[in-house]
């Protein structure tokens, strides 16, 4: 499966049609010419989201009230699809071969992962970034997981509202317990499911990580439940239930929830040392790339094809040695899109793929297809 071309209307400063190669696509241009906009448009087409903003209407060109990105996708030799996502104000609509479809149906056609500076949060930031990394990976191979996550977060929010209220008004403990119980009951069943799927997903990622390394740096990952050392994790739901009732007093005192999968983390080690604390920034970047490669490998095992692999501003985050290794690992697997503003990058990697030069949001020139 690969993306043959995209056509944009009113998408930031982009204009016209962009054609791509099955392997590596190097989107080249000076700053402000639309390189990041171009892979943002690809990402939007593939995921209906942006990696730059949650306020999608920012992407609509100034003075316009809608945008659209359409793409030709080759599914197999015989099957080619035309997909399109439109945004009017905050409203998205989706088309496959000119027919309006629902978002889930639309999302079956294409997917993408992005490597950029934000993603480095996964290897050096808060546990939340690592939980999001896991959750997005699970959702990509098991869409029903999203509902479980949303429900869990909703229950937490409801429970926190009760805890905050109870703390403020010094409500009698028994009364709070009765009010919290219906929420905790759901939290137990949703958290058990989330825990189980995350543990299973980390196992699959671990397998995909084996034998993959940069400069002999081995990356290992482990799911760390916040209930570790607090009871038998093979019987997660009863351990969690016990813990929730034990900690209710503390939760009321804190005015928010203290127990659950929203406190879990993913431990990442490089050569058996904690990556976040002891890893060099180069090691952190390598680790992130390996994690993303493992993620798309698990994705392929489940869905039968790789998602698009997007790397924004490739040479500001990675040195040429790591880039070479990365391109080698991706070769023959993913359709890859990278952006760069450096001619030295072209000197080194031009032979590996197609160069698309952008000026003022349009294709200025492109290298001939191999």
């Amino acid at each position: 499966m690969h993306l043959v071309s995209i056509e944009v209307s009113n998408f930031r400063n982009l204009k016209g049609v962009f054609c791509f190669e099955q392997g590596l696509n190097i989107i080249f241009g000076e700053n402000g010419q639309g390189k990041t906009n171009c892979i943002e448009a690809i990402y939007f087409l593939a995921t209906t989201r942006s990696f730059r903003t949650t306020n999608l209407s920012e992407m609509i060109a100034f003075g316009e009230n809608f945008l659209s990105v359409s793409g030709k996708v080759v599914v197999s030799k015989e099957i080619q699809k035309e997909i399109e996502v439109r945004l009017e104000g905050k409203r998205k609509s989706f088309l496959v071969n000119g027919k309006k479809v629902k978002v889930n149906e639309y999302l079956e056609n294409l997917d993408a992962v992005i490597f950029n500076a934000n993603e480095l949060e996964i290897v050096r930031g808060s546990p939340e970034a690592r939980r999001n990394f896991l959750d997005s990976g699970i959702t990509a191979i098991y869409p029903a997981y999203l509902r479980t996550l949303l429900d869990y977060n909703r229950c937490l929010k409801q429970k926190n509202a009760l805890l905050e209220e109870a703390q403020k008004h010094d409500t009698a403990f028994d009364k709070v317990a009765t009010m919290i119980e219906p929420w905790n009951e759901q939290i137990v069943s949703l958290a058990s499911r989330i825990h189980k799927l995350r543990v299973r997903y980390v196992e699959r990622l671990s397998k995909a990580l084996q034998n993959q390394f940069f400069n002999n740096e081995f990356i290992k990952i482990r799911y760390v439940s916040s209930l570790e050392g607090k009871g038998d994790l093979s019987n997660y739901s009863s351990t969690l239930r016990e813990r929730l009732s034990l900690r209710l007093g503390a939760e009321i005192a804190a005015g928010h929830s203290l127990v659950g999968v929203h406190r879990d983390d993913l431990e990442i080690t490089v050569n058996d040392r904690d990556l976040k604390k002891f890893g060099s920034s180069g090691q952190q970047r390598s680790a992130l790339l390996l994690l993303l490669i493992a993620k798309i490998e698990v994705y392929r095992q489940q869905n039968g094809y790789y998602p698009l692999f997007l790397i924004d501003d490739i040479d500001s985050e990675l040195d040429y040695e790591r880039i070479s290794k990365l391109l080698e690992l991706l070769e023959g697997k993913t359709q890859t899109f990278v952006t760069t503003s450096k001619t030295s990058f072209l000197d080194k990697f031009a032979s590996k793929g197609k160069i698309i030069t952008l000026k003022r949001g349009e294709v200025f020139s492109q290298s001939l297809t191999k």
Partner: protein
Amino acid sequence: MLEYSEPIAKLIDEFKKLPGIGQKNAQRLVFFILRKSKEDVESLAKSLLEVKEKIKICSVCNNLTDIDPCFYCTSPDRDRSVICIVEEPYNLVAIEKTRSYKGLYHILHGALSPIRRIKPDDLKLSNLFPRLKPENNQMITVKEIIIATNPTTEGEATAHYIANLIKPLGIRVTRIATGMPVGSDLEFVDEVTMDKALANRHEI
């Protein structure tokens, strides 16, 4: 921007208070009404007042009705040993459409939601308990309570909360389950799904 004359602006504002109506739709409705005959508009205004004047809440089951107690609470054809609890009157309508349920109803007019400050006292729940005594139920014992709140987290929490209150009374409590798209609203569930959900209810 040019402003509308006062009566138009006022009606637009009134329409915008309705759920799901924004500025554009409100304008559309106002211009639609302006094009209608005086009789049509009078009839609409009359219906609005009439629904407000004549419809009340059933003192037994909280259903919306023009007679109190309502049709379901007084019908000799209903099985008085089963009560089905729903969130809103339109949920009752969805269940009635299946034609497979013959028991009584109890309508809560909401679901628990601490974020929206909806507490147990805000639900119409307290008048359920007198109904469980045979002397208030034409001498018939209530054997089962089916909780058919929406399969959202709020509906689930409400179901758990009510089940915890009723179970000590020794009455069987069941929850409709299978076949329901999780996170969906009963309003949007088709009749076949609803029928299956009712048949596959389980104890909670």
